[in-house]
């Protein structure tokens, strides 16, 4: 209501907008003249019978079912599944989801990450290191999703509104803020390449966040070229592979084998 009131007040005071609004209103009123030709009562009265006959012809309905009277419906040939099957399917889906969650969050790598490294190497406290690794992983995964949406967008076959640009911009804005914090936390760790990758992503995401909403195809193409030119997605994938499968940690200093650790191994 408030929006409507302030809009009406504006129209009262602005001649140009008032004329434009009147013109749009006239256009819409003219569009009311368009009607769908009414096929007539006979058509509507016979509609159900024709539909039912077609459904029987095409096997959607059981052809031997008695003629439906008004108020009764057809007997479906393909009945809905009995209730217990839905419950069983739901239980199976929950089981699969549980297995997936267990693997993701309670995997051996996550558990091992909490154990101290062999050889007595000093590392960041388990909680801090693991937290930074998790934040970085999430940042890279979310960035990857945004970039893939843009990179895979083909303007010849898809409408730009299918890209949901406003959502991508919003996500990119959030990720830019996250990048600033991550870069600060990654300084001083040995993960210089990761820090550089976060920085490169930050630049790309900033460009996406600053895109004009709407039909900004040329800017999208420039960003795509930037992503491809710098091999950003390749670097993200490489980072995913490089992270130690045993610790899942970001190394604090270059891993070096000492005689003791070699003997221990």
């Amino acid at each position, binding site marked *: 209501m408030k929006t409507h009131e302030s809009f009406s007040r504006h129209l009262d005071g602005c001649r140009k907008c008032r004329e434009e609004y009147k*013109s*749009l209103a*006239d*256009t*819409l*009123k*003219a*569009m009311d*003249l*368009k*009607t*769908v*030709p*009414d*096929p*007539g*009562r*006979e*058509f*509507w009265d016979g*509609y*159900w019978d*024709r*539909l039912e006959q*077609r*459904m029987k012809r*095409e096997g*959607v309905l059981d052809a031997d079912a008695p003629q*439906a009277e008004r*108020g*009764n*419906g*057809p*007997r*479906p040939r*393909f*009945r*809905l*599944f009995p209730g217990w099957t839905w419950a069983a399917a739901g239980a199976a889906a929950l089981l699969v989801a549980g297995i997936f969650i267990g693997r993701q969050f309670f995997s051996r790598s996550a558990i091992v990450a909490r154990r101290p490294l062999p050889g007595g190497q000093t590392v960041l406290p388990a909680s801090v290191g693991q937290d930074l690794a998790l934040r970085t992983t999430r940042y890279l995964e979310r960035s990857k999703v945004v970039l893939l949406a843009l990179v895979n967008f083909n303007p010849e076959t898809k*409408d730009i*509104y*299918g890209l*949901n640009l*406003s*959502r991508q911009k919003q996500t990119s804005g959030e990720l830019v803020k996250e990048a600033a914090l991550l870069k600060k936390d990654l300084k001083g760790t040995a993960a210089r390449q990761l820090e550089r990758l976060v920085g490169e992503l930050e630049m790309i995401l900033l460009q996406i966040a600053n895109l004009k909403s*709407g039909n900004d195809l040329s800017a999208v193409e420039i960003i795509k070229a930037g992503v491809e030119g710098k091999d950003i997605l390749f670097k993200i994938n490489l980072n995913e592979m490089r992270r130690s499968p045993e610790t899942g940690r970001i190394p604090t200093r270059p891993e070096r084998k000492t005689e003791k650790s070699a003997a221990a191994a």
Partner: protein
Amino acid sequence: MSREEESRLADRLAAGDASAFRDLVESFKKKVYGLAYEMTKNHTDAEDVSQMAFMKAFKGIGTFRRGASLNSWLYRIVYNSAIDHLRKRPFFSQEAGAEAGFSRGSPSADPQSRDLSSDPQKAAEITLLRCKIDRALNKVSKRERSAFILRHYHDLDMKEIAEVLGISPGAVKSYLFRSIKKLQKEMFVSGRRLRWETDNESMPSI
């Protein structure tokens, strides 16, 4: 049909109530046919598409989520059925205008035409204006036209239109705005804006 009635019908359909499907057809057949006609511009195809849509709805009722809008679910089926139908008919002329040979019911089944039959000039002006409207609608993109038709002629809200077309509500707003602006431009006649004299009920001269 109110939201509550819609919701009750949806529950009956989901529960496998045999009579619910007929009620669905009787309640929605005119809307379904209307949208199918607006997309195919042809009575025969409109009936065909509407029947296909109802059959798909019948077969797919198990996929209908409880709590979702039955209206937008059904409209989505109709819309997609019409799109599929049009894809199979690529050379069909999309020219607007009255369908030749339409003979169901009385020759002038359109109630507005009957009312104006006493004033042939007015009837001719309106017919001309309708052709202009159809031409204008053909000038906008498919998505813009669909969004406009669903909003203006079927009173779907933004969220429902978004569900039918499979796009975001923001995109729907953009399509609607663009379609109205383009229609406004198309309806601009001979340097004069289309004036609708609601005060004295006179028709615009074209």
